[in-house]
């Protein structure tokens, strides 16, 4: 058939990655590669920051340049790295995992992707006309007074928000309408559940940030006075709007990661997932509760003191569904036949580091403690334990797990383990001393610090360089494996979810024959379909 030969030709052509392509697998790779490129840029900015902070005093950046660097480090890592890289995994894997041939709206999907390089270009171009320099939080009135780059930055972030919203519409619609025969909601892989929770959060929270950024852009460009204090404008309003999005954004960045490790742990423990329904529903609970906690970022901002305690309580309640997940993961690996592949190592690293990030989050939710550490390096340490130790570790876990499926090649396990060791040591060495320097009173977002904090900062910078090295090892491994790695089989990890029931990489329509689901996704060590209890305590291994 002529159409088929056209499709085959298209399938083998690398140029398709640079075109408006509607195949979700091509879009997924576009997402992943673009996000990793931004990860390099954001990481380079982090290296600059840590080099400047290597010793006290102002070394090679003045305060303004430093502010621009930290602002764009944060913006790039959040809007152009973690959010799109997780969306990239979802784009590639979600249709495969539910046995669909593509996403529900392929053209909208392509638009979601192409908004990312455009939005990213806006954010980067702002460097040439005086980049955003307010921190990624863009607090007013600072962000009204900043140079023109702040406007370009706001437009870029609005575009990236559209990308998220369109993606979320696609993920939810695809999951609801395109599941293959036999796949009910309780047969959905947990990564798909986590994307449902994430997408609902994006749909509710992201448009509010768009509205807020429009207020800033209107003030800057059209002369409105939303945030002019002399005229009665209220800066706290921006903080409310911003955190109404940006606290849920933390869950937008961590829920898909939790989904990834819920896939990885059972496969490499050869055991059914412990607490399938608990993990699935706790994602939804985090998603809903996450919308009610935003003002815990504003305890020191002059908000009504009467509102502090309610927000403190809701913030602490988030620890409950999160704890349910952590104990379920521990229950999953408990007594299993663990295989310490790089993917598994990163998942275990996720649990240990995210635990520290999560617990320090509970500390900060407590008003008296937060008043003490607000805007110090304690916060920086906490958020990096969550976003690096949590989100980024899950990204690498997913990357090692799905790389053979996407590229048809295996990654080098030895280099993967070296990367994990370097990254685990580097991350802890970077972020643990931040808790101490923060407790000692080191403020965040300042180019200089007191001399007595020198040794803690030296440790952090050494850790950051180790992290940087681990990233080089990773890129070397990924590039050489993609080009020359040994050919992967269709199911190298002997996993049970549907993405492994097709070739690596999958054909253009995903499955030669659509699979029909007859059992749950995690029935390792059991006769498939024999049990309707997903939480068996019997451990039979593989």
């Amino acid at each position, binding site marked *: 058939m002529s159409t088929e030969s056209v499709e085959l030709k298209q399938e083998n052509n690398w140029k398709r990655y640079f075109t408006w392509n509607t195949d979700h697998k091509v879009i997924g790779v576009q997402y992943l590669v673009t996000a990793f490129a931004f990860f390099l840029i954001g990481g380079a900015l982090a290296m600059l920051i840590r080099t400047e902070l290597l010793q006290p005093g102002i070394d090679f950046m003045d305060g303004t340049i430093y502010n621009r660097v930290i602002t764009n480090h944060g913006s790039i890592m959040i809007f152009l790295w973690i959010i799109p890289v997780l969306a990239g995994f979802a784009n590639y894997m979600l249709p495969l995992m539910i046995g*669909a*041939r*593509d996403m*529900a*709206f392929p053209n*909208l999907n392509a638009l979601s992707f192409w908004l990312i390089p455009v939005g990213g270009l806006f954010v980067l171009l702002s460097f040439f006309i005086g980049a955003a320099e307010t921190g990624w939080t863009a607090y007013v009135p600072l962000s009204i007074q900043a140079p023109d780059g702040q406007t370009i930055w706001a437009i870029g972030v609005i575009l990236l928000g559209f990308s998220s*919203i369109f993606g*979320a*519409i*696609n993920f939810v*619609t695809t999951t*609801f*309408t*395109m*599941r*293959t*025969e036999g*796949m009910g909601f309780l047969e959905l892989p947990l990564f798909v559940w986590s994307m449902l929770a994430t997408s609902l959060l994006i*749909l*509710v*929270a*992201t*448009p*509010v940030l*768009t*509205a807020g950024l*429009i*207020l800033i852009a*209107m003030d800057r460009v*059209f*002369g*409105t*006075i*939303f945030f*002019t204090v002399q*005229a*009665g*404008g*209220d800066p706290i309003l921006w903080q409310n*709007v911003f955190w*109404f999005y940006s606290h849920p954004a933390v869950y937008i960045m961590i829920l898909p990661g939790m989904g990834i490790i819920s896939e990885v742990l059972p496969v490499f423990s050869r055991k059914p997932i412990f607490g399938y329904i608990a993990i699935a529903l706790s994602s939804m609970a985090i998603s809903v509760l996450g919308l009610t906690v935003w003002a815990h970022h504003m305890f020191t901002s002059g908000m009504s003191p009467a509102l502090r305690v309610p927000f403190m309580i809701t913030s602490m309640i988030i620890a409950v569904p999160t704890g349910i997940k952590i104990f379920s993961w521990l229950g999953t690996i408990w007594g299993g036949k663990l295989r310490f592949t790089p993917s598994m190592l990163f998942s275990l690293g996720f649990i240990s580091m995210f635990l520290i990030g999560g617990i320090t989050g509970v500390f900060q939710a407590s008003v008296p403690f937060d008043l003490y550490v607000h805007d110090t390096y304690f916060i920086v340490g906490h958020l990096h334990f969550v976003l690096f130790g949590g989100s980024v570790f899950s990204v690498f876990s997913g990357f090692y797990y799905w790389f053979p499926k996407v590229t048809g090649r295996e990654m080098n396990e030895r280099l993967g383990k070296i990367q994990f060791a370097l990254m685990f040591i580097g991350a802890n060495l970077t972020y643990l001393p931040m808790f101490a320097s923060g407790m000692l009173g080191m403020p965040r977002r300042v180019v200089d610090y007191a001399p007595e904090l020198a040794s803690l900062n030296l440790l952090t910078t050494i850790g950051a360089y180790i992290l940087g090295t681990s990233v080089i090892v990773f890129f070397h491994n990924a590039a050489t494996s993609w080009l020359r790695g040994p050919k992967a089989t269709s199911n190298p990890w*002997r996993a*049970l979810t549907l993405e492994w*029931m097709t070739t690596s990489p999958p054909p253009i*329509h995903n499955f*030669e*024959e*659509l*699979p*029909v*689901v*007859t*059992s*749950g*996704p995690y*029935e390792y060590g*059991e*006769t*498939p*379909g024999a049990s309707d209890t997903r939480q068996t305590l019997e451990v039979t291994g593989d």
Partner: protein
Amino acid sequence: MEKAMETMKAEGSHHEDHFRAGKALGLDHRKLGMWLFLSSEVMFFGGLLSTFLFYKVNNPSPSEVALLDVVLVGVNTFILLTSSFTVVLGLTAIQRNNVQGVMRFLGITMLLGAVFLAGQGYEFVKLYYEGMTLSSSVFASAFFTLTGFHGLHVFIGLIWAGLTIFKAYQGQYSAEEYGGVEIFGLYWHFVDIVWIVLFTLIYLV
């Protein structure tokens, strides 16, 4: 190894129903996607509306509220509501396979939408000459931003109506296939409902 999946004979991707699971739930994927988009639109207007109400309560500007012309905007509101009615008539027409009818009724919708926008433009200009501008007060900033972004949505709706009419002209809609008209209708009704909320909270309360 455990083999959890059975496969069934391939039916060939062109004959399969990709949206079988959705139909089992009674969901049309295009309508579901549109509803999800509209839910995010609710939050977008929610953000702007909260800003407006916050300033209306905390920084009232009675002299500017007095400038608002409830009669003019009331007539405008009636016109916009009528445009929703003609969308319904257009949908009914195409469900009866009346292509001319859907083109005519959506044409009237466009006309009414354009009159609404013209009315809003007239209102803005009038207010501007009476001293209520983007920067005259936070109330005015919020008023123009909120109603202006609603106007932008009406404008996008006009373009969408035009495209729908063009597709009808090309013969893409029939009594069996009228999803495009229905989806456009969802958007247009949504923009209308938002206006009813705005009109109530800005001009009546």
